[in-house]
Every structure is written in structure tokens, then in C-alpha cells.
């Protein structure tokens, strides 16, 4: 919302300077976005007279001017302007001035051997226009030495404030002035438009054609004709004002509607009566109807949209934009002035559907003052008659301005309860009265009537807000919150603790945490088990961000590619974040996912004198996943590894860590086809751990841990090598050995895998070390042999293995 200081002062009697006013606006909730004060830029430019302009001795196109600045001795200036001449009055910039049009800092200098101590300026140099043909040529009576901008009326600061959606009333200068008056920065002027008597009946009737479902779309419609106007450019002051706030002057009639829109938050429309056939009908559009709007575009309408039509066609999009055909031009002689009330929701929907953002839509969406419907016509009439002459008709009003006065029972103690602000009733009453509320009653609860221009005020809390913002948030004293417990309590759920621990655990493994987009390209989603229709955004910001991610891997792969493109090939990335199986809260799970690319192994990447890391493989991924599950308190010792990872993994070099049917993690190398489909190169070892699948340890009755069972007896280790078929899984063999004599066997380690000529084709040798821990007494050779026998037998039974001789 833009306006100028002088415009504001037409509504506010004030001595405050512009900075005080704009600071106050910010502090009442009308935040200053921008203050453009021409005096900041143009304060140094003064009016000066050229005493003498003579030819430069060394340059044909330059003149040497002696300038009387009115401020002491004449100054010599070298000037290149063709219109520089003896006796002219112009605009002078002394040495040291910043020239806004060129961005240069003016210094004294010698130009072709002649000293120059200042500048005579063109309009472009002052950023007043693009004119650079010559220097500014002022009338002789311009006062010598005066600040040019002030004399020329170019010094009106332009104020731009941000308006929150609840404050439609502040979309008019009058409403802004009211807030400033309420904080004590002046007095609100009474600018109620005078009632102008009609001199003939309005020849055009208005019919509201709605049914019960749609009649709320236009509760009231006021219309007046002014006959015999002479339309043309509006007065200079109005044109200047519109230009200053960024609008384009068109003609007096149109400029008046724009002026009233900004002055009073009252959008109007003017029709050229000659272009209206018959009466005006306000109704819902018919399907397929079209209108050529004032922006030059033709819009196709549907029955959800409200229009103003005549006997011939649709003439205007109600509350949004007028039609081109009945718009006012220089030829208009009879004008119809419309001031109507429109339904904010209907306007918002129509505007959104048609994609039209207009000042009118913006205001009707936020709510205009219904009580100003007819006064809006009166104000416009006054301006029309003043600028264009003419004779006014009576005002016809179809429908009725609703009398929906809101009265709130208000206990001022609410200010203390909700805002913690001690404030007297007298002060509350003063603030509310200045804001236009009617206050009645002798004791709480008081009756507070809400002014018609504040449709956002519904209850006590709204009044508290009004009082706080006007009296000042600064008066609210900070109040310490009571401590709930002497010692800080745990704030996190198990899931939150896991999230945090997962990140730290993976980072200690040399991995770097990335945060990647929650939405990924459809092809990537499909490649990783996603892509279902319910997880596709209806309005993605780009094709690369179309599907909610089913896995964190695509994002990490994309990051890896991004890094490889910059020459960083060996890297270990992880992310802990949400993945989506469907659009329900339960379908959103937490995953901790990582990938290692190239040679980014745990012990270090790439070439090194101590040994060069090979490419990452499935076992790097398995280690990461297992370590993470263990770090999060998962049952690492009970995990089973099965070779049934999803399709995006290498079928022979990947697996699943599970507890029976519950999948805790996927790990492995990625499928070459998946990578090829996504156009990603490199060797990857990846894992995805599903954090919420890790079982939560049962709450124990006591925090006390079980006693340590440490035997004084030496553990002993026996090695066994078995020959098995190549496809026998080592895990089975280890489990069989470990289960052979649970009371004694503490640990089974597989320390060698051999395939080759010594065991024959289709076979492999697996060597294990079994640690026995005697509990009661040292084991005899016979006892050890007995355990060995059990181990061999169990392994043979489970795997068909043969003990190597």
C-alpha cells in the first residue's frame, strides 16, 4: 500500500515528521516496507542562474558558464548542454553532490584546460525523467538558491507499507491516518463526503438477479449517472499522486476511481453510459460467456463468477475488473458510477480462477467498509463534477447495505489475562474510541460496537489485539515462565533420541550428513519403489520435484552425482529423514540411509602409502548398517542377514537385515541398471535402516544391570576348517557351530574363506575359530574333544560340511 506524506496529511492533522510517522506505522502493525524520500537524493540541488555562458576555448561543444547560486561568489562550470545560455535559470549541483541519475560523486576538475566546480543538471541526472537533451530550463521567477525539489514540489516522500490480510481498512489512506491518530500522532480529519442532490432520476436501473444460494455475492449495488461530463486528463496534482504510487494516469474518470480506491479503500467502477444497452443486471455468469476486460484480455467465464451485464453482454467482472467496451474514454459524456458490495470469498475464487490480480480484487477479498458504499459514490461524484463538470442523477441502490453491527461484551481484564498488560479502562476506552469503536456501559463487561470498516473484529481477543498494538507491545513486561521441575527433564521420545543418535553414529563413521529434497523426480521415485499417484504433487515446482520420496537413496545419489561432477568422487554421505509409503501419517517413516561412493571406505579413501583403499562393496554397507543398528540399541546379535534386498540393489551383492519378518535394513551394492536408468555413474555401497522398525527394548523394572559373569578360568580357542558346497551360506555354518554347546561356546569367528584347487570345483572352505569359556573348572582333553565332536556334527548336519583333514 503506497501513498505520499502530503496525501496522508489530507487525512491527518499532524506535525510529526515522516520518520516518526513511519516508525509508528511499523509499531502498530502497518510495517514500513519502503520510504522513498526525494529529499534524501535531491536535497543538494539548488536553483541557480547562468550569469554568462561563453564558448569553451578548447572544445566546440562545451561552454564555460559563470553560475550565480545565490549563495556567495559565482561558480565556474563547464557544461556540454546545447541549451546552456546566458541568463537562463537552471538546477545546480555543487562539488561533493551524489548525482542519482549517473551514480557518480561530483568532484571539481579541469575539463580541456578549464576549471569546473559543479554541474548544471538534466532531468535524467536527477532521475526525474529520461530527458537528457539539455539541462533543466526553469522559469525566470524560480527563486535563486532555493532547493529545487522543494520548489518544484518533488519532495513528497512516498511511503510503502505492508498490509496484513486482516487490515483491509488500512488499504485506504484514511484508515492509515486513523491508526496514527490513535497512537497520538495527530488528529484524524473528518473527510465524510458531502451528499450531492440528484437532479434527475438515474436512467439506468439495476437488477440483482440471484437465487438464495448466490444472493450473498452482491448484497448492495449503488449507481449514479453524471450527465454531460467532459472527460480528459485529470488535474496535475492527481496525476502526480498516481504516478508517485506507481499507477498510470488514464483519464479523469478512471483516475478518480483509482484515487478513491487508495484514498478510502473503496473500489469503484465507471461505465460510459453510451456503451450500456438497457439496464444493468448483476448476476452469475453463464457458462462460456466471455468478456474483454480492461487489461485487454478476453476471459471465459463460468457460473461461479459474478458479473454485471447489460441487455447486450457482460460489461464487467464484478469487483475485479471492468470491461473494455463500456469503459470510459475521452469521448465519454455520460458516466455511470458504480459502488457495490461483493462477497470476499466469491471475489477471491473468481480472481484466482481467472488469474487476475487487481487493486479492486485485492480490496474486496480483504473486506471494504460496507457503510461507505453510497458515500463512495458521493465522493466520486464530487470529483467528477469538479474535474469534468456534468449534472448528477439520483443514486439508485439495488439490494441493501447490510446492517450487521457486531457488539462485543468486553471485560478489560482480558487485556491482563491474555497480554499481561496492566491498563486502565480509561486508556482502553480512549484507544477503542480513537479507532472508531463505540463504547457503552458503566461496568465490565462493557458493550463495544465494532465499526463497519473492521470486519476482522469478532471477539474479545481481537479487542485485546487492538489495545496492545496501539498502546504498544513494548509496554508488555517480559514475565519469567515458572520452572516445571528443578532439574531439566528428558524432552525426547525414543524415536527422537534415535534420530539424533543415528546422525552422530554415522558421522563418527566418517560419513557426512546431507539434507536432500523431500520431493524427487518421478523416474527416481519409481526406481526406488515409489511413484504411486497419491504421492505425486498436483503442482510441483519443477519436474525434478514431483514425487514424495519413497527412499532417501535417490536424493543421496543425486548429491553424489553433483559432487562427482565437481571432481569429488570418493565420498560417504548419509541422511536421516522421512520417507513416504502413502499419504497418511502412518505411511511416513524415518530412515537412516547412507552411501559410500568409489573408494570411500571407513578407514579412508583412495591411494595412500600405507595401502590403497579398494572400491566400496556390499560388506562396507553391511558394516555401516549393522553398526548403526547396534548403536541404536538394536539386537545386533540376533539379526539375520537374508539375500532378498529390493530390486534397486545388486541381486547377488546385497541383503536384508531382519528379525524374522521385520525388515530393519537393506544393504548392498546398487543395481547397475538402476544407476544406468538414473544416469548415475560409479561404484556405490548403500544401506537404508528403518529406524522405527528397530524394536524398542522393554522397560526394565530396575535400572540396575545384571551382574557380570566373568570367569577366572582361561578361555580356549579351537580352529576348524570345513569344506562345503559353494552356495552354502557362512551364516548358517556359524549359527550351527555357535548353537552346538551354548553353555561353553562364547564366540565363533569366521577367519578364512577359500575357494580353489585345494577344495575342488563347486566347493569352498570355511575356517572358524570357536572360543570356549569354562565356567566351573578347567576343561579336560576329553571334555574339549566332546565339544569339538558336537560342533563338527552340528555343522555337518546343518550344512553338509566335511571337516577338512
Amino acid at each position, binding site marked *: 500500500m503506497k501513498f505520499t506524506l502530503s496525501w496522508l496529511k489530507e487525512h491527518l492533522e499532524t506535525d510529526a515528521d515522516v520518520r516518526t510517522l513511519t516508525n509508528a506505522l511499523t509499531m502498530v*502493525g502497518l*510495517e514500513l516496507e519502503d520510504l522513498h524520500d526525494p529529499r534524501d537524493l535531491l536535497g543538494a540541488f539548488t536553483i541557480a542562474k547562468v550569469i554568462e555562458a561563453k564558448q569553451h576555448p578548447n572544445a566546440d561543444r562545451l561552454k564555460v558558464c559563470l553560475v550565480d547560486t545565490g549563495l556567495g561568489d559565482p561558480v565556474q562550470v563547464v557544461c556540454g548542454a546545447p541549451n546552456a545560455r546566458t541568463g537562463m535559470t537552471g538546477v545546480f549541483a555543487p562539488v561533493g553532490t551524489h548525482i542519482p541519475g549517473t551514480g557518480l560523486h561530483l568532484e571539481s576538475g579541469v575539463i580541456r584546460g578549464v576549471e569546473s566546480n559543479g554541474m548544471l543538471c538534466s532531468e535524467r541526472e536527477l532521475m526525474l525523467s529520461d530527458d537528457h537533451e539539455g539541462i533543466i530550463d526553469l522559469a525566470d521567477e524560480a527563486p535563486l538558491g532555493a532547493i529545487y525539489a522543494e520548489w518544484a514540489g518533488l519532495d513528497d516522500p512516498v511511503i510503502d507499507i505492508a498490509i496484513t490480510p486482516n487490515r483491509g481498512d488500512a488499504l485506504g489512506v484514511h484508515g492509515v491516518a486513523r491508526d496514527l491518530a490513535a497512537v497520538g500522532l495527530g488528529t484524524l480529519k473528518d473527510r465524510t463526503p458531502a451528499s450531492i442532490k440528484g437532479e434527475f432520476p438515474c436512467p439506468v436501473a439495476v437488477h440483482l438477479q440471484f437465487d438464495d444460494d448466490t444472493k450473498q455475492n452482491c448484497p448492495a449495488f449503488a449507481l449514479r449517472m453524471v450527465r454531460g461530463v467532459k472527460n480528459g486528463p485529470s488535474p496535475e496534482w492527481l496525476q502526480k499522486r498516481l504516478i508517485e504510487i506507481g499507477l498510470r494516469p488514464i483519464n479523469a474518470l478512471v483516475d478518480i476511481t483509482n484515487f478513491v480506491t487508495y484514498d478510502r479503500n473503496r473500489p469503484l467502477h465507471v461505465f460510459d453510459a453510451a456503451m450500456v444497452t438497457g439496464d444493468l443486471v448483476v448476476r452469475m455468469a453463464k457458462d462460456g460467456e466471455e468478456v474483454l476486460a480492461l487489461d485487454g484480455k478476453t476471459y471465459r467465464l463460468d457460473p461461479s463468477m459474478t458479473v454485471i451485464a447489460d441487455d447486450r453482454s457482460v460489461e464487467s467482472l464484478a469487483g475485479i475488473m471492468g470491461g473494455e467496451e463500456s469503459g470510459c474514454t475521452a469521448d465519454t459524456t455520460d458516466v455511470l458510477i458504480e459502488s457495490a458490495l461483493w462477497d*470476499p*470469498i466469491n471475489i*477471491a*475464487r473468481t480472481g*484466482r480462477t481467472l488469474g487476475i490480480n487487481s487493486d479492486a480484487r485485492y480490496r474486496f*477479498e*480483504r473486506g471494504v467498509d460496507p457503510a461507505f458504499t453510497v458515500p463512495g459514490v458521493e465522493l466520486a461524484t464530487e470529483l467528477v463534477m469538479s474535474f469534468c463538470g456534468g449534472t448528477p442523477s439520483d443514486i439508485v441502490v439495488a439490494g441493501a447495505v447490510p446492517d450487521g453491527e457486531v457488539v462485543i461484551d468486553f471485560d478489560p481484564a482480558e487485556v491482563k*489475562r*491474555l*497480554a*499481561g*498488560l496492566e491498563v486502565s479502562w480509561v486508556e482502553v476506552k480512549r484507544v477503542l474510541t480513537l479507532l472508531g469503536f463505540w463504547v457503552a456501559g458503566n461496568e465490565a463487561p462493557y458493550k463495544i460496537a465494532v465499526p463497519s470498516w473492521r470486519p476482522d473484529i469478532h471477539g474479545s*481477543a481481537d479487542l*485485546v489485539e487492538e489495545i496492545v498494538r496501539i498502546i504498544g*507491545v513494548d509496554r*508488555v*513486561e*517480559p*514475565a519469567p*515462565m515458572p*520452572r516445571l521441575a528443578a532439574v*531439566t*527433564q528428558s*524432552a525426547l521420545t525414543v524415536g527422537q533420541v534415535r534420530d*539424533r543418535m543415528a*546422525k552422530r553414529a554415522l*558421522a563418527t*563413521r*566418517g*560419513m*557426512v*550428513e*546431507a*539434507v*536432500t*529434497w*523431500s520431493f524427487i523426480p518421478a523416474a527416481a521415485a519409481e526406481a526406488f519403489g515409489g511413484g504411486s*499417484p*497419491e504421492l505425486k*504433487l*498436483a*503442482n510441483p*515446482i519443477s519436474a525434478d520435484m514431483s514425487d514424495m520420496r519413497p527412499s532417501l537413496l535417490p536424493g543421496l545419489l*543425486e*548429491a*553424489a552425482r553433483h559432487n562427482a561432477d*565437481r571432481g*569429488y568422487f570418493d565420498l560417504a*554421505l548419509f541422511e536421516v*529423514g522421512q520417507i513416504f509409503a502413502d*499419504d*497418511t501419517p502412518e505411511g511416513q517413516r524415518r530412515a537412516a540411509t547412507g552411501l559410500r561412493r568409489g573408494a570411500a571406505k*571407513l*578407514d*579412508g579413501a583412495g591411494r*595412500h*602409502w*600405507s595401502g590403497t583403499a579398494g572400491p566400496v562393496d556390499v560388506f562396507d554397507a553391511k558394516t555401516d548398517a549393522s553398526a548403526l543398528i547396534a548403536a541404536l540399541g538394536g539386537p545386533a546379535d540376533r539379526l539375520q542377514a537374508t539375500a532378498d534386498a529390493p530390486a534397486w540393489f545388486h541381486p547377488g551383492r546385497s541383503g536384508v537385515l531382519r528379525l524374522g519378518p521385520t525388515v530393519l535394513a537393506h544393504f548392498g551394492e546398487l543395481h547397475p541398471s538402476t544407476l544406468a536408468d538414473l544416469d548415475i555413474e560409479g561404484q556405490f555401497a548403500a544401506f537404508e535402516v528403518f529406524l522405527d522398525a528397530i524394536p524398542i527394548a522393554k522397560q526394565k523394572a530396575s535400572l540396575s544391570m545384571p551382574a557380570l559373569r566373568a570367569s577366572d578360568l582361561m578361555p580356549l580357542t579351537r580352529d576348524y576348517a570345513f569344506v562345503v558346497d559353494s552356495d552354502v551360506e557362512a551364516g548358517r555354518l556359524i549359527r550351527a557351530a555357535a548353537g552346538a554347546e551354548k553353555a561353553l561356546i562364547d564366540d565363533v569367528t569366521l577367519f578364512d574363506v577359500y575357494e580353489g584347487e585345494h577344495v575342488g570345483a563347486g566347493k569352498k572352505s570355511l575356517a572358524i575359530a570357536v572360543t570356549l569359556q569354562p565356567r566351573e573348572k578347567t576343561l579336560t582333553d576329553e571334555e574339549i574333544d566332546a565339544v569339538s565332536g558336537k560342533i563338527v556334527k552340528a555343522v555337518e548336519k546343518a550344512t553338509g560340511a566335511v571337516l577338512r583333514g
Partner: protein
Amino acid sequence: MSDLEQLEADLNQRIADAADETALEAVRVAALGKKGAVSERLKTLGAMTPEERQVMGPAINGLKSRIADAIAARKTTLANASLNARLVNERVDITLPVRPASLQEGRIHPVSQVIDEITAIFADMGFSIAEGPDIETDYYNFTALNFPPDHPAREMHDTFFMPEKEDGSRMVLRTHTSPVQIRTMEAHAEAGDDIRVIIPGRTYRYDSDQTHTPMFHQVEGLVVDKTSHLGHLKWVLAEFCKAFFELDDIKMRFRPSHFPFTEPSLEVDIGCDRSGDKVKLGEGDDWMEILGCGVVHPNVLRFGGYDPDVYQGFAWGMGIDRIAMLKYGMPDLRAFFDGDIRWLTHYGFPPLDVPSLVGGLSR
């Protein structure tokens, strides 16, 4: 020189000459072995007269003991020499570079680190953490937060929509973390519990330019009880800002604003100096907006199942990425989500730098 003295001198010479443990052992056998020179002399004691024995016994035994000591001493010397020789031999170039430890290489993303910092501060003030889904219903994201249907305030949220369902409804990507306010209230309304939660999480808006990304992080705060008001809100945020930005004094400005779900609504600016390349907090005369807040709107309490005539409270929300940038000086929000290893390594945090109030939020 007596015979014994001669022997001792010879043996000592041979001990001194023994160049290694093998040679020394040969000397020991030759002197103290069963047939060694000293042992042979001891055997002669038996044939001597008691008077001779009285003289020669101590003399030979003394010799035996001195030779044994001399061998032991020589043995220690030889062992030391051989150890020293081995140690010299084992010398390596300790300037050879070792591989960086995984602990050195790993990094925590600034967003995670800052969430941990925020959590540490608010946990101390009695807040716990609440969370909710990213894909939300229109009801939780808007309606229950007092956004009227078709109100311009909804449009200001630049919403991402999910596909329309058969019943005409459609889910949205939450535009703020505020839906979790309602979910939290619903969970506690029946018991009428007091609520103090913070709600960190991902949020989404259809917006992408220099300073906006379509995905970002917010942290929301919600207090509901029978006494908490705007004054408490100001205190909580002031204490938070001091603790988070690790400044003893920080200028704050509370400006009235508008959010559908709070009333009064405020925006909060912190004092800063923007004159240089980087924003400096705690000095200067400029303001930077960091968060929005306010007293919970009665309608929101009602939607959450709390009676606004009995209960009251306040809420706030701020951008995690933005306050991370302010605190740690990252220049560009978009780089947060690029996964560029150089950026992550530079702006990320070592894994064991766990923020706490005891050990310090940052170091």
C-alpha cells in the same frame, strides 16, 4: 699374582670380550659350568687341610660370586646394546602422514546441529518435542488454525497440493509446523494437560528464489495452560535468543502483525548491523525479522479441544535454516540442500560436538 688372581683376571677379560650372549654363555660354562675353571677349583677344596680350606674356601667362593655378577652385568649390557641396536633398526619416518580418522571426516548438517541446540535450550525451559506428518490434511494445516476458507491468508502460504481424492478433498504439504499444534492439543485435551512443546520439522511452500527454497525447516513453540500470556512469550523468546545466539545482550523488537492462529500476533526483529558483507547481531541499528508469534487464538484452542475461557497460551514459529544462517554465517539458503561435500564439510559440525547447556552450545 696368585693363580686365583690370574684366573679371575683371565675370566674378567673373557667376559669383557664376549661380544654377544652366545660368547658370554661360553664364558659362563667355561668358568661356572660343571667342568668350568672355577667349579674345578671348588672341587679342590675337599682335598685341602682345614687350615688351607679356611683361606681358600672364601677365596674361591668369592671368585665364583664375583664372576657370576660380572657375567650378569655383562649380560645386561649386551641385552641393552642389542635392544638399542634393534630400536635403531626399527626407526620409521614419523612425518609420514596418517589417514584422517573417520571421526575427523564425518559431519553433522547445520540444520541438525541447530535443531539440537534449540532442543537443548527449550528442554531446559521445560519444553518437550512434538512432531507430525509432512503430508497434512487441509483441516490441520488451515481450517483448525483459523484460516477461513478462501481467505487471502491461505493464498499467502503458496501451498503444494497432493492429488484430489474421490471425495474432492486433497492433502497438502504442510506450509508450516503449526498443524502439530492442533495434533498436540487433541492428544492432551481430554486430560486437560498443560502443554509446553516445540515442534521442529520440514515445511514446504511453492516458492523458489534467492532467499526461498520450496522446502525449509521451521520450529514451532506452543504453550497452553491457565496463566501464560504475552509477557511470558516475550520472556521465553528473549531468553531463547540470548542463549541461542550466545550473546549477553540482544536487542529485540516486537511488532504487531497478523496470523490467523494467534491474537494478538507479533513479528519479532532482532537488532543487527547490515553494513558489512555479513549480518552482525548484537550491534548496529538495523532490524532483521526472525520469527512470528502471538497469543493462541481462541478458535484454535477450541479446535484443539481446549476451552478458551479457561485455557490460554502462546505460540511462535521461526525458520531453522534462517537462524542457522544468521548464527553461523552461511550466505545462501539454497546450498543447504545441494549435498555439496565442500559446503557440508565446511559448514557442518564434527560428530562429537553435541550441543548442550553444560558443555556449551557451540565451541
